[in-house]
């Protein structure tokens, strides 16, 4: 009905999108510039492609399906420790991969708790290595992400809907069909697609739990081609495959990511009248306990081993920690400068395809972007000097799609519900951001910033290519300690890394929700 749709940050949004595309395309161009296309893909490469798709499909399916009961249970139950658990749901995803792998090994590994339990009953041991391990780690990382995305969607359902449902005396099935299913239909496909795309470019999990001819992802193959063979030709070919695969997945994902818009409410605290039955309570309780155990056991293992190893951490670890904090803060600043105008533009534009700009960042392999920039910087400056800023920049590109998924829906809602009033009051430009958008989406901004900070803090990817003895990040330093079998020092470093990642996430996520009562 509104013929003058509110324009929010169109120009700055387009500039940001152009910059993102330029950063990726320049890297891509550099890789191809250096590559000579002498050969085609070999059987090992095809195996890597097949494995990549298979593990991504399994990871996405399992993560989203299990997220539904967990998000539902969390949305409609109030219990002591709920907010702590919701915060912890952010933990595995923002957990540095290398730290999580340490925790998963303690629980599911060869000498882990699970196998100890199986052995006690005389059952054969299960192996964490290979497909099942890669999928397990991906589910460990993405199940909480899916749950949080669903939960956020659930919490945008105005309390009035549930009040109406209670008023009408709807059965649980009817509540699900009339209120929750439409929401799931809007959010689930996008969530699954997002996880699929994330898992397509998985590197560190495959590096630690996969490997070998039967469990190598494309990203890992790219790394090996660079690092061990410096075979730019093969790496470039694999980058192209990666870009085509993840890119087409991202485009397909966009087709099924609908605009999420669930009307306005009066911002009352969400109170539920449905699902008070005993069976539902018990099921919800069981779901919450199982989810909590799945998350907490590996984290507990990291904590226990880390405390033992902490006194043995060398000074180099603390220096690396300082570098990591700098990289994380730089990533957050750059991310917000890019993501906010982009989100404003996407939320108000008719063409939903522009969200692909963000997904493009993750479709392109981070290692490929890093190497591309290595090649570009090399003739001009010492790439090792710029290793940390480049790492921060690549981290921003990785975080951008998540940030957009988090920021666009509430921004779109804000424009839809308050756009008319804002126009009537001539609220536009900076005052519109200052008084309407920023206060309304502050919780999501905090969440996105925290996620970016933690992701950047724990990233072990590009920095591995730029490996330099003096300028390292904490994850790389930890990896080096593990490589030289200083396991106790590595466990101590893991604990520090865990504290930093969770700390920076908590700081921003909490900051965003602080007094965000309305």
């Amino acid at each position: 009905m509104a013929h003058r749709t509110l324009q929010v940050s169109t120009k700055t949004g387009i500039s940001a999108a152009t910059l993102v595309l330029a950063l990726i395309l320049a890297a891509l161009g550099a890789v191809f510039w250096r590559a000579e296309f002498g050969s085609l893909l070999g059987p090992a490469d095809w195996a890597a492609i097949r494995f990549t798709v298979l593990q991504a499909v399994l990871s996405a399916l399992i993560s989203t399906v299990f997220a539904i009961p967990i998000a539902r249970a969390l949305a409609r139950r109030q219990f002591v420790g709920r907010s702590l658990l919701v915060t912890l749901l952010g933990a595995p995803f923002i957990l540095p991969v290398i730290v999580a792998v340490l925790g998963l090994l303690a629980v599911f590994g060869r000498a882990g708790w699970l196998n100890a339990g199986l052995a006690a009953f005389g059952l054969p041991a299960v192996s964490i290595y290979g497909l099942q391990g890669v999928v397990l780690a991906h589910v460990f990382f993405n199940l909480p992400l899916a749950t949080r995305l669903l939960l956020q969607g659930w919490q945008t359902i105005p309390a009035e809907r549930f009040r109406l449902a209670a008023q009408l005396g709807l059965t649980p099935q009817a509540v699900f069909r009339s209120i929750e299913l439409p929401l799931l239909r809007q959010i689930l496909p996008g969530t699954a697609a997002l996880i699929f795309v994330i898992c397509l470019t998985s590197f560190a999990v495959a590096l630690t739990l996969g490997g070998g001819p039967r469990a190598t992802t494309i990203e890992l193959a790219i790394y090996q081609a660079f690092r061990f063979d410096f075979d730019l030709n093969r790496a470039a070919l694999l980058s192209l495959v990666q870009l085509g695969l993840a890119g087409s997945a991202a485009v397909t994902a966009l087709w099924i990511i609908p605009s999420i818009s669930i009307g306005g409410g009066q911002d009352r605290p969400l109170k539920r009248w449905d699902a008070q039955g005993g069976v539902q309570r018990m099921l919800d309780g069981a779901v919450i306990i199982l989810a909590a155990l799945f998350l907490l056991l590996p984290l507990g293992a990291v904590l226990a081993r880390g405390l033992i190893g902490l006194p043995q951490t060398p000074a180099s670890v603390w220096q690396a920690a300082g570098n990591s904090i700098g990289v994380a803060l730089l990533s957050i600043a750059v991310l917000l400068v890019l993501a906010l105008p982009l989100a404003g533009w996407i939320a108000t534009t008719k063409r939903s395809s522009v969200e692909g700009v963000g997904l493009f960042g993750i479709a392109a392999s981070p290692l490929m972007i890093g190497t591309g920039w290595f090649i570009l910087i090399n003739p001009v400056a010492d790439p090792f000097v710029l290793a940390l800023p480049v790492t921060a920049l690549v981290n921003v590109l990785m975080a951008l799609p998540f940030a957009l998924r988090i920021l666009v829906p509430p921004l779109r809602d804000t424009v839809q519900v308050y756009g008319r009033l804002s126009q009537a009051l001539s609220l536009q430009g900076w005052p519109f951001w200052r008084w309407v958008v920023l206060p309304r989406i502050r919780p999501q901004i905090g969440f996105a910033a925290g996620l970016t900070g933690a992701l950047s803090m724990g990233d072990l990817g590009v920095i591995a290519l730029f490996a330099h003895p003096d300028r390292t990040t904490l994850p790389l330093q930890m990896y080096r300690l593990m490589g030289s079998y200083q396991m106790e020092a590595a466990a101590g470093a893991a604990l520090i890394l865990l504290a930093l990642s969770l700390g920076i996430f908590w700081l921003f996520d909490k900051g965003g929700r602080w007094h965000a009562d309305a």
Partner: protein
Amino acid sequence: MLTLEQGLIRQGSFSLAANLTIEPHKKYAVIGPSGAGKSTLLGAFCGFVPLTQGKLLWQARDITHAAPGARPMTMLFQDNNLFPHLSVQQNVGLGVRPDLRLSSDEKTQVESALARVGLADMADRKPGSLSGGQQSRAALARVLVQARPLVLLDEPFAALGPALRNEMLDLVDALVTETGASLIMVTHAPEDVERIADEVIFVASGTAMAPQPARALMENPPSELRAYLG
């Protein structure tokens, strides 16, 4: 004086024709069956619904394509008239300056508007903690500080009880009399017309008819209006 000249609004199969003039210092009631286009007419005045044909003139100046905020009018919608994350004072302040950088004079202006509608003590509260009547008062305080020559009401009090709604209408009546604004209000209730309106714009069968004196029209309604009033 606001003139809608040979106006036509077309939205899919819906169309509304209007050719009418709004005089200064008068109060108009817009009545008619549901879906006839009462809100659409107000939306066209305000700049939220495009005119397919015709012109909108304010004091002989063409404002057909002016932005909603640049028009000489202020409108209260059916809902979402206040930002729930801003205090009452800030919500009213937005009517003075969209960037909320208020001088001390402007702050005083906001305070006296709040006092005028009886919300002096509620300035720092958020809308969510106010009653429905108080929320309406806060929105009216903003109308007061905006001091536009035209005030448009798209049934903002529809959710209030009869006594409270009458109270609000009386307050609106007093406010527009004080500011010398014209009032255009959508309503379903004939008693509202009697209570406040000088003139009636009857909207039915795809046409918004020219305003007619309220009393004469209500005492001797033409057949279509009689059918609507029942």
